């Protein structure tokens, strides 16, 4: 059961994420919000290889959600139900996509985009190559953090200093990612990518029955808030 998502067609995973945005449009009140979120949560617990990972992603989205609840409550007539609904709507909108995107295998996605959807090969391949570098960002972050600390440019205990430090690190990370991208494009061009206007694909882009089933489930989940109105 849990292999289901891991082996799923990346297009299906992205479709479910996008359908969640459609679902969020139907979230009008606390009841629909809870039902929609509950449906996604049940599906997640049953199907996801690691529900703990989904919880971690939820943490990031919760920050956005809480700030939205607060500002809606403060500015929108201090109505708690309206505020909570707005907050939960964001969770419905973002969480399924944020969790499922993590299970997308970049090469498989490129295969599907290039062969099934027939998008232009070069941008698709470049995108996939960039995507598989995501994991390295965390290590670079650690490196940048350590050098700054060793050279006296680390944060002090004050929260403001920590925030400023994080912003500076994020910028440095961005710059370093751009430089990595340059070196990577040298490597790719040196492997014949520069002149590959048309190219072949080493692996096929299959669509299985399980993919159809998963897509149907995604449609059903997105329909929940629309149907209970």
């Amino acid at each position: 059961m849990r292999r289901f998502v891991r082996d799923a067609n990346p297009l299906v995973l992205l479709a479910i994420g996008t359908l969640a945005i459609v679902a969020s449009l139907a979230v009008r009140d606390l009841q629909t919000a809870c039902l929609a979120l509950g449906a996604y949560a049940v599906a997640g617990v049953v199907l996801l290889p690691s529900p703990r990972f989904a919880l971690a992603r939820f943490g990031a989205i919760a920050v956005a959600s809480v700030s939205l609840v607060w500002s809606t409550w403060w500015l929108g007539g201090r109505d708690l139900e309206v505020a909570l609904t707005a907050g939960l709507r964001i969770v419905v909108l973002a969480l399924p996509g944020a969790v499922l995107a993590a299970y997308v295998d970049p090469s498989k996605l490129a295969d599907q985009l290039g062969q099934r959807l027939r998008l232009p090969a070069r941008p698709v391949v470049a995108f996939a190559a960039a995507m598989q570098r995501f994991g390295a960002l965390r290590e670079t972050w650690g490196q940048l953090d350590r050098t700054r600390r060793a050279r006296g440019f680390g944060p002090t205990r004050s929260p403001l200093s920590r925030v400023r430090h994080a912003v500076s690190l994020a910028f440095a990370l961005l710059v370093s990612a751009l430089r990595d991208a340059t070196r990577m494009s040298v490597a790719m061009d040196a492997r014949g990518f520069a002149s590959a206007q048309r190219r072949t694909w080493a692996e096929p882009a299959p669509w299985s029955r399980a993919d159809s089933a998963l897509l149907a489930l995604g449609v059903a989940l997105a329909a929940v808030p629309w149907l209970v109105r």
Partner: protein
Amino acid sequence: MTGSVAFRGFGWRPLGRRTPVVAGLDLRVDPGERVLLAGPSGAGKSTVLRAAAGVLETTGDGDALGEVTTIGRVGMLLQNPGDAVVAERLGRDVAFGLENARVAPAAIWPRVRDALRAVRLPYGMQHPTSALSGGELQRSALAGVLASQADLLLLDEPTSMLDDVNADAVRRCVAEVVAETGATLVVVEHRIAPWLPHVDRVVVLGHDGSVVADIDPVSFVATLRDDLAGVGVWMPGVAAPEPVEPPVVLVETDRAVPRLDALALGVDLRRTDIRGATVTAALRDVDAALESRAVTVLSGPSGAGKSTLLEVVGGLRRPGAGEVRGLGRPPHRIGSRDLAALIGWVPQNPEHGFLTTRVRDEIAATSRRIGVPVDVDAVLVHLRLDHLADANPYRLSGGEQRRLALGAALAHRPPVLLLDEPTVGQDRGTWAAVTGWMRAAAGADAVIGAASHDADLAARADRVVPLEGGRNVAPGPAPAPAPVDDAR
């Protein structure tokens, strides 16, 4: 058919540099030749290779002069093995060049399998590339080159970031591949000796990128040995240079740290990726003593935990178990500024350490931050970077960047110096300057710790702490300098 490349009056000036890195280069490499390209740091060796591969413009803007004619399919290996990875799975990564060459899918996989076998990678097609070590990554990149049936192999310091065992494996694979396919080979490397048996021609570039020698390997060693060692090239049969110490005012510290003791350190490294977290034990119950007035080298193969130990000792990583004594408090609890006044840490990858956009500012940054006056010009002169004082750190060559990172980390004269692979990829001149800095600081009462697999550096150390697999191992016999006839 095998490849060839010809340079006619070739020159290259990167944007923002007043002088070209290469000027007026005339060089022909004929089909089937195996050429070693040597020269001091900053001589433009990488530039020449990139021009031959037709990817010079991809690396950044600049003015190109003359012409470069490349015939045949190009395969390139870069210095940093991670740069070439384009896919999450090994098989797909090796297949990349074949896809670009529009090989039919059915024909791709047998060639990928053959290539992986030729470079002796024992993994399946689904093996994640993120789980490969540096040496294995270089061999998988070589497999990619091999699978694409490249006619012209361009290798840019492919082994400089690897330890001896891995470097040896990569060299052997390259030699086998070239012997089998008859491909043309151009290799750039600081460690010349191990390559000499595999090439039939040696081209030496001077400081301005012009050809100063073009000769067969045997006469090369016989006639040019001492001349080239003099301009900084590591030559077989020439012992490591004497360390060149900077003026004592550049290293004299006014704080005293008598010793640092690492006691029963344990560190788990957590790698989180999409499919969950993997925890590897980087250090297990490791003890190390770093004394002042002494250079202590942490030695061992890659993956031994040398860098992690250095980071824990320097308060840059919190140990999971054990403690570090000697700075009054656990080092990882000391605030950044106070820590900077106590330690100088030279990271292995210099790129991630730069904070400013000018070489001069980079040297002065930490001193200014903690309020210590420093003679920036004298530091630049010792590191032979004085002509680049106003350049952007990111536009320097690999060797120059490493020198700058060293100066930036140590110019404020901390009493504890921690250096991570400080001699990797350095020419003789820089080697002498870097080891000289360590010796001089030791003479001025500092505590010096260096993580390194450089046998010549270990030979100049006062103490060696050998590590393997994250544990202390019994110290071997006193470190001997690498045998002279195979020094580099």
